[in-house]
């Protein structure tokens, strides 16, 4: 992946750059909004990671200008301010929103999903999804594994659908909370874990391979590779 990071805080920038480079991604860095705007217009990136509060041109303005110029590169805002209004405002121009401090795994997973969902933009409208011998028909709302019908609750269906749409990508607990339950707060209860465990017992029980995998310290992933 080729990413642009616009972040004025040196410490945070280093932490993010190091993380992505270790994973083999290319990260360009701009320390203020003006440089960020220049880099974003000149080069092609898979995703933008932009701090909300920047010297020169602030993050919101920067992205608004890019979008006005027809730039549709998926972007995620980083912010130190977790205001209710700020969030709404941010999500009007950016695809995702992450409050500092965050786990690197969280940012990485979110960027991964952003890039993927735009690269294969057709995915969300596909009527059927497949992972190994697991089949989902989104129109009939039916799921089969190795041809055998599996009954799922509506929540379990949405959870599996989100995982399958992001097949091979790590999705975090908070991403699931946001996308499956529409909760943008962090419950202290292990809601996600218990639902995953129920889903797993329906999908993977008695099957040859375990499809839903737990990624330690990050989240979950559905994958047909061993």
């Amino acid at each position, binding site marked *: 992946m080729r990413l642009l990071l616009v972040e004025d805080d040196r*410490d*945070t920038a280093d*932490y993010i750059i*190091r*993380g992505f480079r*270790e994973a083999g991604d290319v990260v360009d860095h701009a320390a203020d909004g003006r440089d960020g705007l220049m880099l974003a217009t000149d080069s092609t990136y898979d995703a933008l990671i932009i701090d909300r509060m920047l010297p020169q041109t602030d993050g919101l303005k920067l992205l608004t200008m890019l979008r006005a110029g027809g730039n549709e590169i998926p972007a995620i805002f980083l912010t*130190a301010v*977790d*205001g*209710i*209004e700020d969030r*709404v405002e941010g999500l009007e121009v950016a695809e995702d929103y992450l*409050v*500092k*401090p965050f*786990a*690197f795994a969280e940012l990485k997973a979110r960027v991964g999903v952003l890039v993927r969902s735009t690269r294969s933009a057709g995915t969300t409208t596909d009527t059927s999804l497949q992972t190994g011998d697991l089949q989902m028909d989104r129109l009939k709302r039916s799921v089969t594994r190795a041809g055998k019908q599996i009954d799922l*609750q*509506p*929540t379990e269906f949405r959870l599996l659908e989100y995982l399958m749409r992001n097949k091979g990508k790590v999705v975090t607990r908070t991403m699931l909370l946001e996308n499956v*339950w*529409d*909760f*943008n*707060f*962090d*419950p*202290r*209860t*292990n*809601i996600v*874990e*218990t*639902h995953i*465990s*129920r889903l797993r017992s329906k999908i993977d029980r008695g099957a040859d391979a375990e499809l839903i995998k737990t990624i330690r*310290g990050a989240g979950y992933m559905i994958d047909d590779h061993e």
Partner: protein
Amino acid sequence: MNRLFKSTGVRLTLLAAGVFIAGMLAINLLVYFNVRDDMEDQLRDQVSAETRQLLGDYRDDGIDELRHDISERLERNPGARLQYTLQNPAGVTLFDRFATGSEPGWSRVRRDGAGDLILLTTPLEDGYWLGIAADTRSIRETTAALRHTMLFVTLPIILLGIISGALVSRRFLRRVERLKRTADQVGQGELSARMQTTGSGDEFDGLAITINRMLDRIEGLVHDMRHVSTNIAHDMRTPLGRLRQRLEDIARQQLDHGTRTRIEEAIVLLDETLGTFASLLRIAELDSGQAALQYKPVALEKLLSEIVTAYEPAATECHQHLKLKDTKPATIPGDRQLLAQLISNLIENAMTHNGAGTHIELSCGSENGQPVMVVRDDGTGIPPNEWENVLKPFHRLDKSRTSRGSGLGLSLAASIAARHEASLALSDSRPGLTVTVRFPAETS
């Protein structure tokens, strides 16, 4: 009745009216008796003078001249005149013929159907008595007119007294009421409320200014106190964030299993602290009223159902029974995310503070036009004297000090409710705790 007299307003009205009326009555009575006595004195003077004159004639010229004088007077002025009588030794009366009595001096003669007479009886020689009397009819008429006028005037005066008393006391009480209202507002947390001053510089203004100065101070202190905690929360996020980054950097390196686990545990602890700070900042944001929330219609029954579905597996894992009990359609204007958090916090509160086997039931509906949402458990409950305290940030019951939770869940729920102009009340479910969130009635 007793309560009525306890009201300062009624008491002040009666007092003012009473004093006013008593004064007026005293003046009336004084005038009345003075007029009556004066008129009577005048009549007596007249009778005395006549007696003196007739006695003079009698002494000079004897009883015959007296008879002549009296006859002359009777003829001269037959209408308004004094009354005369002369009684001979045999007790026969002449002229106006009323009994003179046998006592010299003043007396009163009662007459049926006519005014009393004021009679001066004087003994003459040879067993004769002279009686001269004045009719008191004029006094009677005048005092009757006076009484009439006074009665006529007194009723309006009493009325006037009551009205003026009521006006004075109302003016007084209105200002007391205004002070009370402001004090109530402050008591309910509206710390910016201030007493009004009229600018007249009277005692009330003085009191209002003193109280306002006190309120300024209280508001300042509360503001400082709130800001200390939110400022700490805000300022600590950056250094704690850096600390988190460092810990993650270390955890990414080649480590033995034990060290990695301990670093990961440290990150989890750090995240809990950061979570507490985030809640604290969210409460401050909501309480300050700064964030402009965009309210959209939220169907409570739908939201409750979604959240119960989300929490049900976790509750089951803790051997608790979470379910919807009785949901009727109830839609309110609100922020779905915040309301979801409110409901989640109430469920989590019930789950964390109660053991296995607890039933947690959620319901919603409408009471007297007000959308209502209830979370009820049959767990250990909270003593009534703690109901108010547990809604305050970081307040935890002694027994729950060891259990998980930031101590902010209920405070955040209360702040979210307040931002939706809803009341959040705790009550006893015998056994257990019931939390009722009551939204304002729809005003469409």
